[in-house]
């Protein structure tokens, strides 16, 4: 069995699956049970400064986006940081870390943007024996109205400044948690690096209105007829997060900066994808909130079996392996030609591929009286839409054409050599190589 042990910023955990800072990590009871269930580490629910605790709404704080059969695809929340007293949290963190020394214990913090506030909380956190801290610069709702969370995370120079204060005032490793609610994720990541942060984690939730109640005309979750934008997470946000992870990994400045991947991770495969794009470990929130702590068993067995199958001995063997293959569009091989192919034995004749291609794409699928669906190679541009809409996995596949074959759509012979847009004759800016 492959070894799932993980080391992130020198912090060891038996596996790379951590629980993200959120309700699952809000108290001792939860975290103990999470560790018993097998989670490798936790990022404790974000602590605020000492004083009267935060208050939350007393009505619904979550809203959902569903797929078929009410499968939860996206979750939105208007919850704030922990609403329990600072001292209580600190005591509990200390007790849990003492009993689970082999698990990672990171403490998430969000205090006002003043050096004094950070100076005052950091020693208290350090005193718990925690392994590191995560700066919550991400929360897009509520706290941001008070100049914290995303309000800091959206201004790179604040990120740099707070990161620096933290590095100067604690020996614990500092992880900066990034908000996706910006135009280019590389700017806040670069700022964190400049400020001396040891790592970034991403993404926090995306500013969102999950739905509108058409009877009351209130956004959901609705509090007395009104709703506020919330933070969006769950399976639906994974593609956004993966892209941001890859952007940071491939950036000349931030490349190599350790990343803890977050956003929609639901099973081992999601986790492996994040890690293949360079994340040293991953954090999970919504999947645990949907299915409970037990999912980590599937994540462990799944990743371990896959590693065995691929011959990876440790997670570091595949971390970042997909990163070099993330490139810009202009470098994609335009001589790569494929055609869709329908496997008639597995086709159930639903006609979805036909409707999609005929109505909205390239009229490249034919239907006959027996409802046999076939790809018309002369028309197929290999867009993949039919593959995406077919309900039967692997029923439609994309078959690469071999060099020397005739592409009947273009009338051209498929070439062996690589050629991209930068040298394409239609590109007026192309530099022709002699």
């Amino acid at each position, binding site marked *: 069995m492959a070894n799932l042990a993980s080391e992130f910023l020198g912090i060891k955990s038996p596996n790379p699956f951590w629980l993200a800072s959120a309700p699952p990590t809000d108290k001792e009871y939860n975290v103990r049970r999470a560790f018993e269930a097998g989670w490798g580490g936790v990022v404790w629910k974000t602590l605020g400064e000492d004083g009267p605790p935060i208050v939350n709404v007393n009505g619904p704080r979550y809203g959902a986006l569903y797929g*078929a*059969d*009410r499968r939860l695809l996206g979750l939105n929340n208007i919850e704030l940081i922990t609403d329990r007293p600072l001292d209580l949290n600190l005591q509990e963190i200390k007790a849990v870390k003492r009993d689970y020394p082999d698990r990672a214990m990171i403490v998430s913090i969000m205090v006002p943007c003043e050096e004094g506030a950070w100076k005052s909380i950091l020693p208290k956190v350090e005193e718990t024996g925690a392994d590191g801290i995560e700066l919550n610069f991400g929360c897009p709702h509520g706290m941001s109205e008070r100049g914290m969370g995303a309000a800091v995370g959206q201004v790179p120079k604040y990120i740099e400044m707070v990161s620096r204060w933290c590095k100067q005032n604690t020996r614990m490793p500092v992880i900066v948690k990034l908000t996706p609610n910006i135009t280019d994720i590389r700017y806040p990541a670069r700022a964190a690096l400049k400020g001396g942060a040891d790592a970034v984690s991403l993404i926090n939730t995306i500013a969102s209105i999950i739905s509108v109640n058409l009877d009351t005309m209130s956004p959901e979750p609705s509090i007395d007829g009104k709703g506020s934008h919330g933070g969006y997470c769950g399976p639906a946000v994974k593609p956004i997060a993966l892209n941001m992870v890859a952007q940071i990994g491939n950036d000349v400045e931030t490349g190599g900066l350790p990343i803890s991947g977050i956003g929609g991770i639901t099973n081992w495969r999601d986790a492996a994808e994040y890690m293949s794009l360079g994340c040293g470990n991953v954090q999970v929130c919504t999947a645990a909130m949907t299915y409970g702590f037990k999912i980590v068993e599937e994540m462990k067995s799944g990743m371990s079996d896959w590693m065995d199958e691929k011959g990876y001995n440790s997670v570091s063997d595949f971390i970042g392996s997909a990163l070099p293959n993330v490139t810009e569009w202009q470098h994609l091989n335009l001589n790569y030609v494929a055609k869709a192919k329908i496997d008639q034995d597995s086709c*159930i*004749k*639903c*006609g*979805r591929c*036909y*409707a999609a291609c005929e109505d909205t794409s390239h009229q490249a699928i034919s*239907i006959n009286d027996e*409802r046999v669906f076939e790809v018309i190679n002369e028309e197929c541009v290999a867009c993949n839409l039919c593959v995406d809409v077919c*309900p*039967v996995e692997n029923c439609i596949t994309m078959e690469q054409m071999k060099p020397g074959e005739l592409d009947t759509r273009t009338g051209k012979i498929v070439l062996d050599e690589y050629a991209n847009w930068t040298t394409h004759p239609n590109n007026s800016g192309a530099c022709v190589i002699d």
Partner: protein
Amino acid sequence: MSNTVSSPGVLSGRLPVSKVNENFSDLHEPFRSHEASVAADRCYFCYDAPCITACPTAIDIPLFIRQIQTNTIDAAAKTIFEQNILGGMCARVCPTETLCEEACVREAAEGKPVEIGRLQRFATDSFMKSGAQPFLREASTGKKIAVIGAGPAGLACAHRLAMHGHDVIIYDAKEKAGGLNEFGIAAYKSTDEFAAKEVEWLLEIGGIDLQLGFELGKNIHLNELVKQFDSVFLGLGLGAVNNLKVSGDDLENVSDAVQFISGLRQADDLTSLRVGREVLVIGGGMTAVDAAVQSKLLGAETVTIAYRRSKDKMGASTYEQELATSNGVVIRENLKPKTIIGNGKVSSVEFERTKQTSEGLTPTGEAIMITADQVFVAIGQALSVNEERLEFAGNKINVSGSGRTSCNGVWAGGDCVSGGEDLTVTAVAQGRDAAEDINLSLMG
């Protein structure tokens, strides 16, 4: 009552009331709304969906299921009623396993089709419960049409004609409307007086005058009707039953299955019905299965269906056969009835074993006896009307196009005409299509 399942003779009250009520409750429980939304989510919204093609009334199934998915149940019901105003009954009685659900692509994919029938029932029940009408009657055209027969064919025809603003009179020989929906369909498929309620609901569109106790060939006549009305539609069904024509068929406790079922459907108290201890049903269609299953549910100790050909030739679908066997009915194949034996009352039936050869069904000479104290004959129904103005094809009325008979101004549809399976849904389709054709010919 002291009678039990094993008491000898043809007796009432073999089972306690509570047991009988349980036996005759809904064959398929109606969906609760959670179940309906889970079931609806399985539909792929197929292109040119094969389920639509397989539905004789061509209901837009993917559309109505999508409307259930988006929680617009009334819109779903309207999609159904647009094509099939008896969508409520069809949802209960259609052999979906040989129609839409057989064609569903998820049957091909997983052997588990989308449960179209139950979803249809969910939508139509919900709509009908609200008491609303899906369609309004257009302004009166002043045209008068006579519809003979208030079965599914006649009702569908009358409703569609009324929608177009025509004045319709329905004549039916019986004391109650509904045709076989009321008198034939197995009791556990149409519970809670659904057939009668559906007729009442459907007539609320207005413009339809229901006249019961009028029998074509007796107190009304086709040659007069064609003079009095702008058009005539015949939805007569198959009123007569085929006779067994073997000796002993006149013995006591030998009767026709359709009559037994009709008595059962009209009974106020099912425990008052008399049923044998050893029941034998001769036949192989849906009627044979229904008579057999319902005998068993009334408390017969053994029930046997004897069919002269092999099982795969039975008119009853595999699903219906399984329904019978799962209720404890024994199906015996290749048995041709020879003589019904008994002294006053039937006591057994002698069969001869048959086998399928290249010359067809051939007797083998082997005699088989089956003891029985009650015998039901279910070997098919026949047209009971003989109008010389009409042309026949075999023993059914010959029609062309959308139900045009050989007689000018007279249309026909449902079981009484040639073409199409003898099913409720086929009768509805033919009645509806004839109405459209009548409308066109009158207004066109």
